[in-house]
């Protein structure tokens, strides 16, 4: 089950500030809802987790993140994240190319092309919601990214945005996974 997404999100900060965050893999990972880097093997290889707990649903993926390419000229990174859930019953992978660039409409913009693949139990029972889910995850990633950018760029309103990523991450999780879980659930549930 594979879905491809091409998204562009407006950013408040400058292209240069945005690039400082984008090229920092740990920072980027921090923008992924529920994701964390557990150890750094080298500058191109990391191990990480994505944990999701929503409604009665639990999914925990652990796997590898490989930095295929960091192109300072293009201000573009290419990541591949591959993971299996802790029970070995599902697997997911994401091939993400993200770049920051100038924009007419906003200070700068974040452009992401992602290919998300799910296999196993999740694909059996939740596969057909992947587009919505991936879409929302990527959107949430962008929101968190711009929040981080906002907090990183010194400004008077620094206290407000600080809380922002927190909140957004939680909501992001909820929204993103609600759809998938609700769908999976509707497969099995009859009535509560």
């Amino acid at each position, binding site marked *: 089950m594979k879905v491809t997404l091409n998204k562009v999100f407006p950013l408040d900060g400058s292209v240069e500030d945005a690039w400082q965050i984008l090229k920092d893999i740990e920072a980027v990972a921090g923008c992924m809802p529920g994701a964390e880097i557990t150890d750094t093997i080298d500058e191109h290889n990391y191990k990480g987790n994505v944990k999701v707990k929503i409604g009665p649903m*639990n999914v925990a993926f652990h796997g590898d993140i490989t930095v295929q390419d960091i192109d300072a000229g293009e201000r573009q990174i290419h990541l591949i994240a591959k993971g299996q859930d802790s029970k070995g019953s599902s697997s997911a992978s994401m091939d993400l190319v993200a770049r920051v660039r100038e924009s007419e409409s906003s200070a700068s913009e974040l452009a992401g092309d992602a290919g998300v693949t799910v296999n196993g139990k999740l694909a059996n029972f939740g596969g057909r919601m992947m587009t919505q889910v991936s879409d929302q995850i990527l959107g949430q990633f962008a929101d968190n990214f711009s929040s981080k950018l906002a907090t990183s760029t010194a400004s008077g309103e620094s206290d407000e945005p600080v809380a922002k990523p927190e909140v957004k991450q939680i909501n992001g999780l909820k929204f993103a996974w609600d759809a998938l879980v609700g769908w999976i659930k509707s497969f099995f549930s009859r*009535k509560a």
Partner: protein
Amino acid sequence: MIPPSFEYHAPGSVDDAVALLSQYGDEAKILAGGHSLLPMMKLRFAEPEHLVDINNIGSLKGIREENGEIVIGSMTSENDLINSALLQEKCPMLPEAAKLIADPQVRNRGTIGGDISHGDPGNDHPALMLALDAKFILVGSNGSREVLAIDFFLGTFFTALETDEIMTEIRIAPQPAGTGASYHKLKRKTGDYATAAAAAVIGISGDSCRSARIALTNLGATALRATDAEAVLVGQAITDALIEQAAAKVMEICDPPEDLRGDVEYKTHMGGEMTRRAIRDAIKRAGGN
């Protein structure tokens, strides 16, 4: 398909249940009818550490009338809805719709409160509640509050319920004379979720539409209230052309995921068709034609 281990709690009162929910927070799940949660646990998608079984709380069961309002306990089973003389007389759409849910055995366990609380757009009661303009009583550690159906469903599987809250009652105001209601559900087979379903509550005076509430099942991230479609009808003389316009408005707000039941185009058109049928029946029952 074997559920994982958990600790089991069977509180005898709402207060005890709420206490357990506040104590265990995210690790606790409420067990109502169990026909949503247990299959998910068997698949190991859900692994709550604590199950709070509220089946022993008698106060959550039953259907009564209270200052004109119909009051339904959240743990009232689908079959109790079907067999309720009060509902058959004052709110016949509910027992009729309940007959379209699952199968007889499941309807003995499945509860209206559980169906609503999951905020699953595939469940039937959310749309019915929207069309009936119902109110929900939620009880938590901070006491009791009332939430309108229209404010309750926030996203797929995401409702206004806080983790320490339990839905205790559903309250439905009486329909004024000259009001008719109908629910039409298209499904692949007995026990299936709606491919598309529509509930319509229509009030008429003379041959024109006095009031209208239309809601949809399984056609979006939540049950949908079709206010634009309602606006098309209200204040107008009911004609086939008008019903067509309403159906068209309904189709505009449908955003269903594709699955084995059908693609977006099919489900959207079925949303329109179920709406046509629901409106026509509702009008008949309101005394129109």
